[in-house]
Structure formats: C-alpha cells, structure tokens
C-alpha cells in the first residue's frame, strides 16, 4: 500500500539559526517555488528565535516556516522532537543535516566529554534523525549531510572535529547505498574554509569578505535539490574556494 504525496515539498534543516543552515533555510523559504514548508531545528537560543522570525518574514507567500528548538546532543530530546515533527509533517522530502559543533584543541587537552559532545552533535544526531524518521515511514527524496574538508584530511588541533566529520562522510556513503532502495539521493557536502561565526572566532584577523560565504554553500545545496542535482550527487562534494 502506497501513501499519496502532498503538493509542496518539505525541507528540514538542522543548525538553522546561523551560518550555512540559516542560508539554506533562507533560500528554500524565499526563492524556491517547489517547497512550501521549511522546518528549522537548532539549539534553543535568542539567535534561533530571531532567525526563525526573520526567515518567516522573508518567506514567499504560502511558505510555512516552523522552528523546533532542540538540543541535538540529547538523543532522547531529539527523538521526541522528531516525533512531534512527524506528527505534524508526515513527509519530509529533503533533510539537511547541517548542525555541527567544533572545539579545536590539541590532543592532550581534549576533554573526553567535549569529544563525546562533538560526536553526539556531528554524528549521532544526523544518524538518529534519519533512522527515527525512516522508522516512522518517512523515506526521503534527498538527504544532504554537511561534513567538512576537515573530515578528509586531519590537521593538528582538530582531532575531535576531523574524526566526527570523517564519520559523517563515510556514514553518507553507507546511507547512499542503503537508501537507494527507496530512490533516496544522499549527498555529502564538504565545505572548506567558510565565513561562519565559528571561523570568525578561530581566525579573528581574517577578512570574511575574502573567503567563501555560507550563502555560497547554500547555493550548492540549492543546486543539489534541483533537477541537475542528480548528476553531481554520487561523491563527497568538496565546496572550497
């Protein structure tokens, strides 16, 4: 027995309060005419509240923007949030696993709990989102997992983040093979240096105008969700200046 689909598509973006996630949500709410529901998932914060309000304001007529504040590091909280989302939106067509956490410190200084938190947010949360929705019968048209070039090559000082993003890259490969069963496309995007808030903290002297912006990565995700996206989705897609 197959279930019939609704008219406009639904996208769920994690880590949507700022940076790449925010820009992706902005693009899908404001510029595309095939999506009518944009769901945002991020840690509860003033920035998230403001971002959701701004996105709703800038959305095209008829587009619904809905925010779900949730701590992605908390598996139980995330499951409960997914249940709430699924009850209201039984079909999520596109999922963008963008939320990420990084606290780059040297090996000897890594706090194990911080490493666990990194893995919780960067690996377990995207996995749980996908698995929990699949268990509820939500097969996807497209899943975009945002990894990082730091997951391809390690660099001193970035152990926890690099390890988690390497996991994201290979997890995406497995998802791509297993979810081909439903015709789901799974794309892994690995941005390089990008003018995010985190980057500003890590490299305060860098002029953000000179490097790739979150909106550029959002444009790539937009392309992946368009008709030509299927021609470039078979590998870990490096997005770098």
């Amino acid at each position: 027995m197959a279930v019939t689909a609704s008219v406009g598509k639904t996208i769920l973006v994690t880590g949507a309060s700022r940076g790449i996630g925010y820009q992706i949500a902005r693009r899908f709410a404001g510029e595309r005419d095939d999506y009518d529901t944009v769901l945002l998932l991020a840690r509860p914060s003033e920035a998230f509240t403001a971002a959701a309000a701004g996105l709703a304001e800038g959305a095209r007529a008829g587009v619904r923007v809905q925010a779900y504040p949730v701590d992605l590091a908390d598996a139980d909280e995330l499951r409960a949030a997914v249940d709430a989302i699924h009850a209201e939106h039984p079909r999520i067509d596109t999922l963008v696993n963008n939320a990420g956490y990084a606290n780059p410190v040297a090996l000897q200084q890594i706090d194990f709990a911080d490493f666990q938190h990194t893995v919780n947010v960067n690996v377990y949360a995207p996995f749980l989102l996908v698995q929990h929705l699949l268990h509820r019968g939500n097969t996807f048209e497209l899943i975009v997992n945002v990894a990082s070039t730091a997951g391809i090559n390690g660099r001193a000082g970035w152990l926890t983040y690099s390890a988690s993003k390497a996991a994201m890259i290979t997890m995406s490969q497995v998802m791509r093979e297993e979810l081909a069963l439903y015709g789901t496309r799974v794309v892994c995007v690995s941005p390089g240096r990008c003018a995010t808030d985190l980057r500003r903290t890590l490299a305060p002297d860098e002029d953000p105008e000179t490097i790739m912006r979150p909106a550029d990565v959002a444009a790539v995700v937009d392309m992946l969700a368009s008709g030509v996206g299927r021609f470039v989705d078979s590998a870990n897609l490096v997005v770098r200046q």
Partner: protein
Amino acid sequence: MYSLVLLNGGVGARLDAGRPKQLVTVGGLPILVYSLVAADAVQEITQIVLNYPPGWRDQVEEIVRSYAITTPVVYLEAGPTRHESVALGLARCSNERVIIHESARPLVTSADFHRLIEDPRPNVALMLPIPFTVAPVDPQTSRVTGSLDRSRLRNVQLPQKYALADLRAAHQWAAARDLVYTEDATLVVDAGHEVYFVAGSDRNLKVTTRTDVRLASFLLQGGDDGRDGFSG
C-alpha cells in the same frame, strides 16, 4: 485488491548453514527487505501473508517494523515444503486475487507487480526463455532419452498472480492425489486451469548460492548501470 503470499520460509543450506536464507544480507540488507519494500509501494497489494521459518518470527517481525512496512502483514509459520507453505498462506488471504512471490528474489520491482496486476487474465506468471539446451535423460542409466524444443519451454519465475479460487482448487486437487509441486504455475495448469506467461527479466534471479548473493548485491548496488561511461 490483492493479497501477496511472500514465501520466506526456506532455510538456506547452500548459503549459510543454520541461518534462514531470508536473513542473509544482500547488498548489506536482509534479503527479505527488498521484496517487502517493492510490494509496500504497490497500492493494489493490501495484505501481505508472510511466512517465517519455525523459530524465526521475532527476527522477521523486527524487519517489517524497522522498515516501516505499512501494508498489513499476517505472519504464518512456514510449512514443511514450499508447496505446503503456499497452501497454508492461501487459507489466510483476504482478497480474491493473490500474488505469490519469494524473498529469495530480491531484484523484484514494484513494476513487476504492476505488470501482473494490469494483465487482464486472472492467472499469469513471469517466465523467461531458456537460453541453453536441455536434454531429457534417464538418471538411473545415464542415458539421454530424446530431445526437447527449448522454444516451447520457459524458465518459471516469481512473482505470479492467480484467482484465489483457482489456486485453492489446484492445491485441493493436488492434496487429493498426494502430489507435491515445486511451483504453482504448472500445478494450476495440471489441475485444469489456464495460466499465461509474460516475459520476465534475467535480473530477477533467485538467490540460492553464495555466488548468487554476490551477483545480486552487484546488481542491487547499480554495478551494471553503466554510469561510469564505459558503455558509451
């Protein structure tokens, strides 16, 4: 509407001693998943009668649950033979039309089910031409006894569809004569009903040996889709 009898009770002695073959993984997934998902996407299939090898119900139910199969499933312990498993499954069908399939053919597609459903004839099986020569023999004496015209023979595949009344009557006919068949198209014909065939695909292979598992995995993962440009 159709009931699907999904045969899933065989123990794969040639594949993995002690483990039922429907729990063997093909392309990384339990082989049963492919048929379940293909059938679940077919609107006309409103019931799945799924059998399981004795002692393996929990594992089979867990697969159905994990893959969020929405079509109602009736679980049924497999009979001692394939023939009996079908007969037991028929007793649980709630629709007047039935499709028979087996989980050992993971390359089945929703389109295969649709082709059978759209065919106006009541009893239809997927079948393939035989690309090699077969000879009738006497196995006792090792003597070749004649010849067969392969253009008049077909490789019998699944899925197949039947009017439930015809298939039930055929099984009753066989039971009355103590006959056991290894598949249903020839049984239904021997019992006096008409059965037609439509061309199947050689991709829809039956996974029986370890080599079959590797071949099916290769096909399921798109290894033959020519995406890499070697096919021009």
